[in-house]
C-alpha cells in the first residue's frame, strides 16, 4: 500500500466523522521531545500528523511557528534528522500494532527539499514511512518536478486552496497534484490567529468539495472544539497547528510535561 492508498483508506474507513490532522514542527523543542509528542498525538486520537521541516523563512507561518522553526534550527535539527525521527515514530506504531490506521505527512517549504535533493528527499521520506507532502510555496503553476517525483512513488502531494481560488483553478490544481484530499486554507493571513466559521465558510468549503471532487481538509486558526464541530459537517478533516505549540509552551512554563499537554489538547478537540 503506497502513501496515497493509505490516506485514501483512512478517509474511507472514517466516513461520517471528520478526521483530525495535527501539526508539529519537527525537532521542536528538541528531537527527543518532538518524537514523543508525535507519538502522543497519534496515540491520543490524531488521525494524521503533519510534521514541518524546520526552515529559516517559513513564509506562511505566524510568529509561534516561526519561533519554533528557528529554535529547532538553533538546536541543530536538520532535515535528515527529522525524517529519521519520523521513521522511528512510524516503526514504533507498526510494532505496537494498535490497529487504528494513522498517517504521517511532511510539511516543508520548497527550499529545504531542493537543498536535500528532490529525488532523494521523496525517496527517503517514503522509506521512513511518510505518506504525503504539503509544500505551501510549490505553486501549482510554477516550474517544478517535485509533484511528479512524489507521484511516481505514490506519495500524496496535497493541494492548498484559498478562499478566493476560483473553481476552474481548483480543478487545474487537482489535475496537477495527485492527492486523495485537498487542504482548504480557511482565511487570509498567516497561521496562528483564530478563525471564525460562518455561512461563507460553508459555501467556500462546499465549492471546494465539488470542484476538487475529493476529500476536503480545512485549517488555519483552529483552536477549539466549537470550531471543529462547526466544520464537522462540511469537511472530512480538520487541521490544527499553532494551538499545539501554544499548549506545549504553556506546559513548559508551568513545568509540566509537553506530551501530556498534547494529549489533553487532542482530547479537547475531538471526542469520539
Amino acid at each position, binding site marked *: 500500500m503506497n502513501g496515497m492508498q493509505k490516506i485514501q483508506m483512512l478517509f474511507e474507513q472514517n466516513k461520517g466523522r471528520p478526521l483530525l490532522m495535527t501539526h508539529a514542527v519537527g525537532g521542536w523543542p528538541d528531537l527527543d521531545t518532538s518524537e514523543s509528542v508525535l507519538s502522543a498525538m497519534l496515540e491520543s486520537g490524531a488521525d494524521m500528523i503533519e510534521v514541518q521541516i524546520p526552515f529559516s523563512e517559513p513564509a506562511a507561518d505566524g510568529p509561534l511557528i516561526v519561533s519554533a522553526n528557528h529554535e529547532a534550527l538553533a538546536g541543530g535539527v536538520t532535515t535528515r534528522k527529522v525524517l529519521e525521527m519520523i521513521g522511528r515514530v512510524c516503526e514504533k506504531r507498526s510494532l505496537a500494532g494498535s490497529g487504528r490506521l494513522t498517517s504521517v505527512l511532511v510539511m516543508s517549504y520548497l527550499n529545504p527539499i531542493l537543498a536535500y535533493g528532490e529525488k532523494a528527499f521523496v525517496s527517503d521520506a517514503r522509506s521512513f514511512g511518510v505518506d504525503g507532502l504539503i509544500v505551501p510555496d510549490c505553486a501549482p503553476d510554477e516550474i517544478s518536478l517535485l509533484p511528479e517525483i512524489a507521484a511516481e512513488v505514490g506519495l500524496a502531494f496535497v493541494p492548498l486552496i484559498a478562499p478566493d481560488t476560483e473553481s476552474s483553478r481548483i480543478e487545474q490544481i487537482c489535475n496537477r497534484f495527485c492527492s486523495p484530499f485537498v487542504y482548504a486554507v480557511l482565511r*487570509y493571513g498567516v497561521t496562528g490567529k483564530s478563525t471564525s466559521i460562518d455561512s461563507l465558510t460553508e459555501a467556500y468549503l462546499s465549492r471546494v468539495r465539488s470542484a476538487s471532487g475529493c476529500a476536503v481538509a480545512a485549517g488555519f486558526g483552529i483552536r477549539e472544539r466549537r470550531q471543529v464541530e462547526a466544520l464537522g459537517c462540511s469537511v472530512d478533516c480538520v487541521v490544527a497547528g499553532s494551538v499545539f505549540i501554544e499548549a506545549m509552551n504553556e506546559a513548559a512554563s508551568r513545568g509540566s510535561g509537553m506530551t501530556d499537554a498534547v494529549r489533553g489538547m487532542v482530547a479537547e478537540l475531538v471526542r469520539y
Partner: protein
Amino acid sequence: MEKIMNEQARKRYFGDFGGRFIPEVLVPAFEELEEAWASVKHDRKFFDELERAQRDFVGRPTPLLLAENLTTSCGGGRIWLKMEALAHTGAHKINNALGQGLLAKKMGKKRLIAETGAGQHGLATAAVAARLGLECEIFMGEVDMARQHPNVYGMRLFGARVTAVTEGSRTLTDAVNAAMKSWTERVSDTHYLIGSALGPYPFPEIVRTFQSVIGKELRSQFRERYAELAGRASRDPSIEMEQGASSGSCILAGVSDAQKSLPDVMVACVGGGSNSIGLFHDFLDDESVRLVGVEAGGHGTAPGEHAVRMTSGQGRPGVVQAYRSIFLQDDNGSLLPTSSVSAGLDYAGIGPELAYYGKNGRIEFTSASDEEVLDAVQVLARTEGILPALESAHALAAAVRLARTLPVGTDIVVNISGRGDKDLFITAPRLDGEDWLDFLKAEVARLEGLL
C-alpha cells in the same frame, strides 16, 4: 493544460531564475498586479505622468559628474559619478517608489506597504504615499531601525507607520518576510511596494523598468559630457598639460581624438539589485561596456560575516521569498545570516535578473569590505565634497580599485546610489569617536532638561 501552465510560467524567468512561488492566498493579488502592469507597461500617458513627476518631485535627471580630483588621485581611468544621491529623499529608491505608487493609485489601492533595510526605500515610499494621498506602513528590522534611525524619523514625519520586525536576524531579509505576510492579511486595498528588483514575478520586472531611467539618462549624459571634455581638450590642450603630467593626462587623456558614446566600465553596488540593474539594463547589449556589481564583503569571508552571494562560494540556487535565485544558504536550505556595515546590502538573496547575468558572465561581480567602504566614504568626501551612502561607497571602493589598474583614458561610471547623511550614527562614531560621544552626551542632557 500542464504545458500551457508551463509556457506561461517560463515568461516569468530570466533563464533559470525568477518565477513566482507564492502561497495560494496571494494568487488573486498577483493576477491583479500582473494585469495592471501589462496595461501600463506600454501606456504613453502613464509614463508621461511618471516623467513629469520624476522631473518636478524627484528632481530628475540626476547629474553625471566627472570626479576630477578623485581621478587624478587614483592616476588611472577617469571616474564619473552618476548622482542618484541627489534624487529626492536621497537615493535611487524614489524612482521605483514613485512608479509603483502611481501604479497602485491606478489600481485603486488606498494603502502602500513596504519593507526597508537602510530606510531609504521606506523613506521614498512614505514620501510618495504622502504626495499621492495614500496610507503607508513600513516594515523594518529592529536592528536596522536602531542603526538607521534618522530615516525612521523621516518616515514618521511623512506620516508612515513604521513597524519593527523582531523575527530572525531582524534585518532586511526578515522585513521582506514581514511585508509579504502582512500583504496576505490585507490585499484588497493594499499594494506591496517592494523595494528592490527581487521577489515573485512581476516585481523584478516592474522595479527594473522604473529604475532603468538611471541607465537611460546616463547614455545621453555621457555622450554630452564627453563631447564637452573633448571641446575643453581641443580649445587649449597646453594648459591642461602644464598642470602636470599626472593630473592633466588623467582627465583629458585620449579625449581629443574622437567622440565616445559609451563608457568602458560601469560599477554599482548590489543589495537586492535595483540600482545596479537600473544602471546596467540599457547597456546589456553594448558588449564593449564592462558591467560590475559590487556586493557587501562585510568583515570576513566565513559564512555569516558578509553578504557576498555571487563570488563567495556560499551562494547556491534555491527558492526563497517566493523567487528562484542565488541565496546564501546552509546544507538544509536555510538562509545564512549576513553582515555588512550597510543595512541596504545586508541581504542573503539577489534579484533573479542579476543572478542570471552574473551566471552567464555578462555582469561581473566583486565585493568591498566594511573597512574599504569606510575609507571610500572619506576619500570621496575629501576629494569631491560628496558624502556617499555606505551602500554606494561599496561601488566607489571597487571602482577606485579598478581605476588604478586601468589605462588612463578609460571611462568608469560609478552609481552613487544614495547620500550618506542617514549613516551619521554609523560613520561618526568610527571616524570622529570622542567628539561624537561628547556631542551625544551633551545632546542627551539637553533633551532631558527639555522633555
